[in-house]
């Protein structure tokens, strides 16, 4: 039975139909009708009021990445919409399902440079999976249904619905039909059994096979079949940055992170493997290094839901266009049990060198230099029994978290991978904690990125979001400093930072915290931080001269690995 309601009311009801219970947003003129309706639905739909629209979208990203549900953002037209552009681009790169609702001026004002008008669809088309303007109230339910279907199906991504004022205020007869099919779009391609058989043949004939696991494994809930495949055929696994936590850090076949600051074993052995099974990853340049010198001996099996990733940077010998879980489950019975003991041992041999050189220095097993990021992150991981969600900002804090935090379950590492968005961490951690209130959420952030979205401390205050913030403070833009140190003759152009008293800033928001200036203080500080479920800020004094190693410089082969500023690893070790 239908009844006449406003487009704004229909929008809110449509969100409820899609199972939404939390939205992140910021009101404004062109979205007021929707906010007026939200007022009546506050018992069913929790609205988190951020302090800047960029915070809303990064929070929604953190929420989506931890929960696997579609993140929802509501902002106004013009500047409100423009302020979510970074997050849209970030979510597009990192395949994060979002529905972003932007208000828009009334239809009669479109194109007239009206107050707070901007061409949202035109701006967002290149950085969204789908971007659509709604001008009539009767189109609202169908547009929302389509948006949710597109955002979450196939390779997930951000969707924008730009809703003109008339569509919010005008009336329609309410009726909601979820979308399960779009003629021009096939998010679930039929599994190519021939390609699966060819992949299985390659794996069964392999002497030095290796799995590269990307975020597609997590997005497809494919951790279990991935682990079963790896165990059955004894295939070592390397994870991309966003693939981290797809399998537990402690799994014996988990041999480390791939790429520029990854672990030596997986990077050296990428170029020695005879078969590579790449699952839900896209051979990003930070993973491959110089593609001309990448995996020269390997036949490459590439499993991805997005066919545009095949042969984009690295040619595939067998391309399997499928959901990762479906493809791995189909492969499993065709793959024979195998043992690759000496091959597996070779990963450990390379990684042992990393332990004795890079990690030994970073974790201060021998020295008593000033605190370093890796040391702090390693100890937070231990203090949380390796069970926390690690959310990072971008830069050294991110790479060190990826290297030194340990993971027990999927969806435990939230980081801006493809776009590398500084300022992502704090709001993403807020979204992560709201998505998983029962889990400990640790934010690892630098002093630069923290100040890019520091206003979201207000959001933490208002909703008492129990994020544990570990500020790895070296009073420098550390990663830029590292590159200036290595490649720009130590000319530290615009990287030193004069910082405020961060604990006083947090205190102004009613957030507890403390300064940590020596490693002896760490354990007690962690105990106070983790004693309850309230937000907490640790401002940790970090040695600014510390650098992230190992490192494969841009343009070098993946097995060209610097152990420190002056030492290149000999892969024939």
């Amino acid at each position, binding site marked *: 039975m239908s009844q006449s309601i406003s487009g704004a009311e229909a929008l809110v009801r449509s969100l409820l139909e899609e199972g939404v219970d939390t939205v992140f947003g910021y009101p404004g003129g062109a979205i007021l009708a929707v906010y007026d309706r939200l007022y009546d639905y506050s018992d069913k739909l929790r609205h988190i009021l951020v302090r800047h629209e960029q915070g809303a979208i990064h929070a929604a990203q953190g929420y989506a990445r931890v929960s696997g549900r579609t993140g929802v953002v509501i902002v106004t037209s013009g500047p409100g919409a423009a302020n979510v552009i970074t997050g849209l681009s970030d979510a597009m790169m990192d395949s994060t399902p979002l529905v972003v609702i932007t208000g828009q001026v009334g239809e009669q004002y479109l194109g007239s440079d009206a107050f707070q008008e901007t061409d949202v669809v035109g701006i967002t088309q290149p950085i969204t999976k789908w971007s659509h303007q709604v001008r009539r109230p009767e189109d609202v339910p169908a547009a929302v249904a389509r948006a949710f279907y597109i955002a979450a199906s196939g390779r997930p991504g951000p969707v924008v619905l730009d809703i003109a004022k008339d569509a919010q205020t005008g009336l329609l007869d309410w009726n909601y039909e979820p979308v399960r*099919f779009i003629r021009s779009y096939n998010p679930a391609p039929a599994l190519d059994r021939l390609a699966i058989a060819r992949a299985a043949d390659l794996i069964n004939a392999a002497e030095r096979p290796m799995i590269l696991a990307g975020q597609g494994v997590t997005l497809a809930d494919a951790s279990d079949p991935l682990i079963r495949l790896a165990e059955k055929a004894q295939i070592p696994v390397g994870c991309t940055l966003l693939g981290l936590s797809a399998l537990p850090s402690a799994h014996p076949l988990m041999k480390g992170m791939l790429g520029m600051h990854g672990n030596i074993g997986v990077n050296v052995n990428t170029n020695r493997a005879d078969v590579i099974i790449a699952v839900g990853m896209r051979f990003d340049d930070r993973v491959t290094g110089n593609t001309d010198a990448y995996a020269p001996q390997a036949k490459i099996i590439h499993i991805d839901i997005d066919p545009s990733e095949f*042969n984009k940077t690295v040619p595939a010998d067998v391309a399997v266009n499928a959901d990762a879980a479906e493809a791995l489950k189909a492969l499993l019975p065709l793959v024979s049990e195998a043992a690759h003991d000496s091959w597996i041992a070779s990963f450990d041999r390379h990684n042992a060198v990393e332990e004795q050189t890079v990690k030994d220095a970073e974790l201060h097993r021998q020295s008593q230099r000033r605190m370093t990021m890796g040391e702090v992150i390693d100890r937070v991981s231990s203090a949380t029994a390796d069970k926390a969600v690690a959310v990072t900002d971008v830069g050294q804090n991110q790479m060190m978290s990826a290297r030194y935090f340990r993971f027990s379950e999927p969806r435990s590492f939230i980081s801006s991978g493809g776009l590398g968005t500084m300022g992502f961490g704090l709001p993403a951690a807020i979204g992560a904690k709201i998505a998983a209130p029962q889990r400990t959420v640790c934010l690892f952030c630098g002093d630069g990125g923290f100040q890019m979205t520091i206003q979201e401390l207000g959001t933490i205050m208002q909703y008492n979001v129990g994020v544990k913030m570990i500020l790895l403070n070296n009073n420098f833009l550390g990663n830029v400093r590292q590159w200036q140190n290595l490649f720009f003759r130590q000319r530290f152009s615009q990287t030193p930072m004069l910082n405020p008293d961060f604990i006083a800033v947090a205190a102004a928001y009613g957030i507890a915290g403390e300064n940590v200036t020596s490693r002896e203080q760490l354990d007690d500080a962690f105990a106070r931080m983790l004693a309850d479920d309230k937000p907490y800020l640790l401002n940790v004094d970090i040695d600014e001269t510390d650098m992230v190693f190992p490192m494969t410089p841009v343009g070098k082969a993946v097995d060209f690995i610097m152990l420190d500023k002056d030492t290149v690893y000999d892969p024939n070790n």
Partner: protein
Amino acid sequence: MTHPERQLFTVTVYSENCVGLLNQVSVIFTRRCLNIEDVTASASSVSDIHKLTLTTWADRPTMEKVVRQIEKRVDVIRAFLYTDDDIVYQEIALYKVPTARLLETGDVEDIVRHHGARILEMTPEYTVFEKTGHPWETEALLDSLRSYDIRQFVRSGRVAVTKSPVEYVDLFLEQQEQRRRRIIDGLEC
């Protein structure tokens, strides 16, 4: 790394007929700094389905990626990459020339016969020729008319149909219709 050879490619895009589709497609070229030489938007043989035909100079590996990225757009049904050997193609050109200059020389009949052109309109002030053909043919008529003080010249974008006996868009739509029945009619979820 050696650079693969550049050649002229024709891209055809079948899509839903929706606002902003051309923008979605063109930004994929813009992103790689590829210039679109010409573009034609029209109906296709299937009702409600729109067809874009674009040409661009590029190398094959680049264009294969471009076409897959176009196809990735939700509103795009299928996109295809062709070289001139794969298609039958045509374009149309119009030429506006002062009539007085044409009459001075008396070459009109020769020009029309030699180029297989048509006269669309003739007034005391101007004459409009029409020529359809391949680019080199419309170019040749342009060269012939230059000495007559040509005032306006315009050439359409390319229109093209494939030589292939298989209609891949129809196949895709059939497969999708089967999917739709499975999903919507509950034969499979």
